[in-house]
């Protein structure tokens, strides 16, 4: 086995170990076995799944976006896809429909927002050929939705604002046991779909014109990539809130460590390391809880932002 295979195997083992560690760390003392059972299924297991799926899914969607726009600084966050999900969720939470949050309203609205944002970006990418222009539009869109959310907050009741504020911080503890199968199903669909794109992703490394020349149905693949990203970013944002930097940082780290553009390896890396990264952040937040409470978004930004800054500095 070569160096890259070994690295991925090692990563898989560390991830497995971290899962056990996470289970250990989230253990809460309980009086009876039945109570412990309830705690496991209602709280600890959904939290574990949240961390795994959010980390793996956001990294995967970041990898797709960076490939599509041929820009290592692209990601669901930068392109406004998370913002689309945030906006529709804010409309729901702050617009006076909090009751709908209990059913499929939350995930439905979030998916809808992510899809609309992705469709908007798809349309813009069709008109604006340059990647920088596209990223700028994405950032403008993010800032625009942010402003609308602020306006909505000023109208909403303190209770609604608090609920939205907590969701907006990102949390791995919001997922309920009943929602676990939904998140897992959406994630599996997105994952299988992206596995079917590996050959095209490798061709896209050369740019879309060359990919076309290599027999890739470029229009269809572009649509698939945005749809997968919307599916992942939308569902994860619905259940865990907007989580920053994971989608941007992990794929870059993957290319740097594996030194490859083979998207078969890069997808495996993003799944493993993305899951490991969020799991690690969550273990750290549990460990630090007695001293101070850190939302997951703060932790990912604390680690992710300096790394991205380092990448930008190194490139220029």
């Amino acid at each position, binding site marked *: 086995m070569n160096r890259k295979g070994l690295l991925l195997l090692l990563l898989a083992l560390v991830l497995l170990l971290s899962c056990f560690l996470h289970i250990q760390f989230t253990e809460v003392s309980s009086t009876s076995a039945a109570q412990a059972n309830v705690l496991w299924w209602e709280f600890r297991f959904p939290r574990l799944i949240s961390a795994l799926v959010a980390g793996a899914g956001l990294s995967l969607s970041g990898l797709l976006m960076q490939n599509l726009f041929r820009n290592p600084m692209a990601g669901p966050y930068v392109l406004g896809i998370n913002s689309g999900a945030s906006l529709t969720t804010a409309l729901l939470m702050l617009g006076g429909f909090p009751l709908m949050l209990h059913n499929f309203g939350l995930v439905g609205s979030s998916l809808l927002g992510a899809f609309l944002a992705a469709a908007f970006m798809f349309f813009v990418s069709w008109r604006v050929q340059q990647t920088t222009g596209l990223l700028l539009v994405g950032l403008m869109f993010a800032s625009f939705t942010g402003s609308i959310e602020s306006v909505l907050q000023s109208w909403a009741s303190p209770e609604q604002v608090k609920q939205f504020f907590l969701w907006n911080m990102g949390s791995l503890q919001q997922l309920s046991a009943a929602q676990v199968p939904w998140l897992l199903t959406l994630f599996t669909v997105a994952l299988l779909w992206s*596995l079917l794109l*590996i050959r095209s992703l490798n061709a896209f*490394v050369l740019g879309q014109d060359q990919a076309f020349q290599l027999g890739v149905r470029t229009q269809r693949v572009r649509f698939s990539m945005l749809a997968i990203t919307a599916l992942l970013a939308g569902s994860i944002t619905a259940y865990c809130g907007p989580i920053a930097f994971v989608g941007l940082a992990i794929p870059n780290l993957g290319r740097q460590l594996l030194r490859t*553009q*083979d998207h*078969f390896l890069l997808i495996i890396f993003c799944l493993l390391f993305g899951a490991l990264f969020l799991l690690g952040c969550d273990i750290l937040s549990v460990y630090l809880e007695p001293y101070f409470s850190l939302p997951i978004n703060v932790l990912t930004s604390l680690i992710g932002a300096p790394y991205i800054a380092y990448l930008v500095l190194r490139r220029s």
Partner: protein
Amino acid sequence: MISFQNTVIGYQHPLIAIENLTLHAGKVYALLGLNGSGKSTLLKTLAAQTPLLDGALTLNHFPITQLAKDSNLRAQQIAFVSSRFDGIEHLTVVEYVALGRIPYLSVFGKVTVEDQQMVSETLKDLGLTHLAQKRTKELSDGEKQLVSLARAFVQDTPVLLLDEPSSFLDFLNRENLLLALLKWVSRGQRCVLLSSHDIDLCLEHNLPLLALAGGQIQELIGQDKKEVVSVLLKGAVH
């Protein structure tokens, strides 16, 4: 191998009209023309990237409209080395050249042993074996051009289009490039069309010339440089 009939080519507006022209297998054609004469548009049309405005165009008996629709067929008939390759981060020369095999791979993009063999043989033919493990970002301009050629060779298509392949090469590499192309077309039913500004090089190797001027194409064989230049300048007079 490539045949035009009452073909009108252009990007939104008609730029070139070709009444009747056939390019034959076993030859390397050089497309000459001043800047803006439409060389790139013609190549892009042949690569099925830009649609025909009117008339008929067939490559290896396949109409271009069919090649534009059927992506697998297109990738197995036409290879296109467009303009300049800048290198891609983290991509080595072997990995880059192997991307030329994509039309023949499964959805997972796994390169087979035969594909790898083909890549290393092509690199050897072009005298590039020593670069195999080098990163594409670290290559010189000339080396980048040559590995792009290797990638196109590996795609193994009857028609190979090259947009100014010699522009970044020194005289030695220009020679090597042309010799490699001539050798390549001599094996099997293949045809190369390259655009160039290097009239001397094309004449030296006796390439059949296609002079593009004033929206017309003229096939020139056996003319000297002065005559070729005067044909090319025809388009620039008004």
